[in-house]
């Protein structure tokens, strides 16, 4: 028993040792040489003045996000950044967490393991980051769209265990239940053994023979069970099975989920849905069925974790264009049309996929300590007009709309190279006329309003007349008539 205690104490002691060490770390700041050499290797990026949609419920207007070595170091106002920091002035733009695509095809180029096959310059990857995706599932691997680099691409391997449960396949259902039962039974005996072995060291660990390792991984919480189901009966079946054996199912499709949303919510299910999915009900049945525009909203209301995925998971520039992986925000926006709250729609592309993949601690929200995978947009992410202006993966800009040929010419940034010299061409006539009109009006107003107000009007009015062409002149008379 004493030994045991010592063992449990050892990590505690380490922790205790680590705490003062960590607390001491800021102290060497006084030693200039040491910090300088350290900082040289560090990579700092400061996103300054953007509206930060953290994904945690907080919206920080005109705030700063400081990234250090690929992680978010600090979020707040008037942040101090070291001199060598790369500063991005993004006031007027919005910052969102990078999107997480739960399925993808061809974004990484090549085939085989990500590490040896990724083509970090391939066009699909450019299009994907241009649409806000910074992390994507590629086969059995999860990768970062770390454009231009081979490093730090692979995030994780083997998250999902594909299981099938269908009302039309009784034997399949039967064998799944048997596997779950066997795995659950094994876990029970294993836990029993864990308790007993403390008093009797000779007890042997129970054998895993006959236990499906995949199903066991699901019950142990090491992997997620992924079902592809649309029919309400299947969904109910999966929900009940999940509750019975204590795991949280991931259901892709989930078309009729809105009918059985309460069951799915109780089971703590994740749903990967295509919001624009359309299928009429089976008319042979009296009960409701088929797809619903409200699917995402209803599922969300009942506590189901809703993630969206367009119907094609590759980049498609023809054919299914508009419903490919570039259009995750459009897909989410469609769920909003069906009643899903906007923050839940953003979460359906960020927080929830990250959580679903077991990467909630690294991705999905803008929080200190998380990966600096961020996108900067020129408007509401859910609006069709919005473009991703910059995308950062691991604190590095991997996409700049102005620098790529694809969308650079569409509504260029006002400060960009491609911007027209004057955003609106006033036309030669407009420039000449307004100054000529104003002096005529003002003398007429002056005597009636009194001498005290006149000078202030004089000093305020001319600037808009010079810069904003016709606008100032139009507003003046409009106000007068309202009064």
């Amino acid at each position: 028993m004493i030994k045991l205690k010592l063992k449990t104490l050892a990590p505690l002691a380490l922790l205790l040792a680590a705490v003062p060490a960590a607390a001491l770390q800021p102290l060497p700041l006084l030693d200039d040489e040491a910090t300088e050499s350290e900082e040289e290797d560090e990579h700092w990026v400061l996103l300054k003045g953007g509206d930060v949609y953290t994904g945690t419920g907080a919206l920080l207007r005109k705030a700063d996000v400081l990234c250090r070595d690929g992680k978010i170091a600090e979020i707040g106002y008037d942040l101090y950044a070291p001199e060598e920091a790369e500063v991005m002035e993004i006031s007027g733009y919005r910052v969102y967490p990078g999107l997480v695509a739960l399925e993808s095809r061809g974004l990484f180029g090549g085939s085989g393991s990500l590490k040896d096959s990724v083509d970090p310059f391939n066009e699909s990857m450019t299009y994907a980051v241009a649409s806000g995706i910074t992390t994507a599932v590629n086969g059995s691997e999860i990768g970062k769209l770390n454009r231009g680099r081979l490093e730090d691409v692979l995030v994780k391997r083997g998250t999902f265990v594909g299981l099938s449960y269908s009302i039309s396949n009784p034997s399949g259902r039967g064998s799944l239940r048997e596997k779950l039962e066997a795995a659950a039974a094994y876990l029970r005996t294993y836990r029993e053994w864990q308790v007993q072995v403390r008093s009797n060291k000779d007890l042997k660990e129970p054998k895993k023979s006959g236990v499906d390792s995949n199903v066991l991984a699901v019950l142990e919480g090491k992997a997620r069970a992924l079902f592809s189901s649309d029919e309400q009966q299947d969904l109910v079946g999966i929900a009940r099975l999940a509750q019975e054996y204590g795991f949280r199912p991931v259901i892709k499709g989930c078309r009729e989920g809105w009918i059985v949303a309460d069951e799915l919510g109780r089971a703590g299910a994740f749903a990967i849905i295509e919001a624009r999915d359309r299928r009429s009900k089976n008319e042979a049945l009296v009960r409701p069925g088929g797809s619903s525009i409200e699917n995402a909203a209803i599922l969300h209301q009942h506590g189901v974790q809703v993630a969206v995925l367009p119907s094609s998971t590759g980049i498609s520039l023809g054919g299914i264009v508009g419903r490919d992986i570039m259009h995750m925000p459009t897909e989410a926006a469609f769920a909003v049309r069906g009643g899903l709250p906007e923050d839940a729609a953003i979460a359906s592309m960020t927080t929830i996929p990250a959580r679903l993949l077991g990467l909630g601690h690294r991705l999905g929200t803008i929080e200190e300590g998380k990966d600096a995978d961020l996108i900067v947009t020129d408007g509401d992410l859910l609006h069709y007009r919005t473009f991703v202006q910059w995308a950062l993966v691991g604190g590095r800009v991997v996409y700049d709309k102005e620098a790529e040929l694809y969308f650079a010419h569409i509504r260029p940034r006002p400060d960009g190279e491609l911007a027209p010299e004057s955003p609106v061409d006033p036309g030669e006539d407009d420039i000449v006329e307004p100054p000529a009109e104003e002096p005529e009006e003002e003398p007429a107003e002056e005597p009636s309003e009194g001498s005290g107000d006149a000078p202030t009007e004089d000093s305020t009015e001319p600037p808009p007349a010079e810069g904003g062409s016709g606008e100032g002149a139009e507003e003046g008379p409009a106000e007068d008539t309202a009064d």
Partner: protein
Amino acid sequence: MPLPQGTLQRTAPDHPNPVPVAARTRATMMLSTLLLAAAPAVSAPAGDLLAIRARHLATGTGETLEHAVVLVEDGRIVTVGEDLPIERGIPVLDLEEEVWVLPGLVDAYSRYGLSGSGFSDLRPYIQAADEVRLDDSSWARGMRQYGVTTAAFYPAGRGIPGQSVVVATGPTPEGSRVLRRSAYLKALVGNDSTSKRYLRDGFKEADEWLDKEAKNREKYDKAKEKAEKEKDSDKKKAELAKLGSYKPLPPNMKGQAFLDLRAGKIELLASINKAADYLHFLDALGDEDVSWHLRTSLSTESDLFHVKEEIGEAGAMVIIEPEITLHPSTMRQRNLPAELHRAGAKLVLIPRADNSTGMKEWFRDVGVMVSAGLDRDAAIQAMTHHPAALLGVSDRVGTIEVGKDANLVMLTGDPFEAGTEVLAVMAGGSVVFGEDEL
């Protein structure tokens, strides 16, 4: 380049009064042509001299000489300079005003005249030298008529198919046509685990052999030490005799090429198609300190510009076709060779097609790149000096400098102007093409 000033002197001054160049007559030129035609193709007798006068001469070092004089002795260049007087009695080849002289071209990447396919795995021991016919066969005549006096042949196949050979297409002062039996080791590397594995496996084979060899040596040393401690002198003698001197293990076929790479005896030529392949090549190479160059075949939508700065910073040599490409998914034209050159990479241009048409059009195709922004001197170097340097034979060919083989291409006009053709070609001091034109 330091140029010798003053009078050209023969080694044996038979004619003490040098005649200024301006004083020369047409008759001497006729004489020189006759002499040339009579000159034996290989190993000219000692003291065999020829002076060449040209209005325009690009040396291949990035320099262009006006009113140049080149003195060739025994197949080698002994003097190069501008406006040099030529000693009386030296046969002179006086070229027409519009003629340009360039160093003999070097085609660094060819399989001209070779057939057959290769393996597609790790076969670094295969030598292209074993495939090439070294007599004066049709490929050699075919190449040199377009001004190619030096060519490197690579082994066919994918993966790591073997080592290349550098040969002369005409006579050389030294006699042998093989300039370098083992030049670059070719390796196709891309974004797939197989091709990367071949490269890693090669170095692994080398390491394994080194380990075995070290163990073998250790074993021998121990045995010898033991034998030397032997007190009985006869027995000691017998045992030492039995051990003999140390014999290294026979080389490992696959590992040897990689040991040669590390030792700098050969270079690596990474054949890549796209920007990502370059990163994967570096990844597969890891910390190995070997000399490497790049070969990339320009497809219409090459995306190599993504890594041009990195390639330039590495100072790598890039074997590339003179080809205008399109920016991926657009109709925007790019001059990648020029971009690579500006980024600091050393260009090695090869004919657009590895056949007689490609060689015939070589100057014209490079001319297109020049008119599209490629630096002119860089373009000339990319056909002469740089390929020679890549192939490790720049001490002999690739430039018109003192001591180099007298490989010259004479063109009817500016090399990059339309309509310019090869007038004559000199290899190792002998005119191998176009005698009648001179």
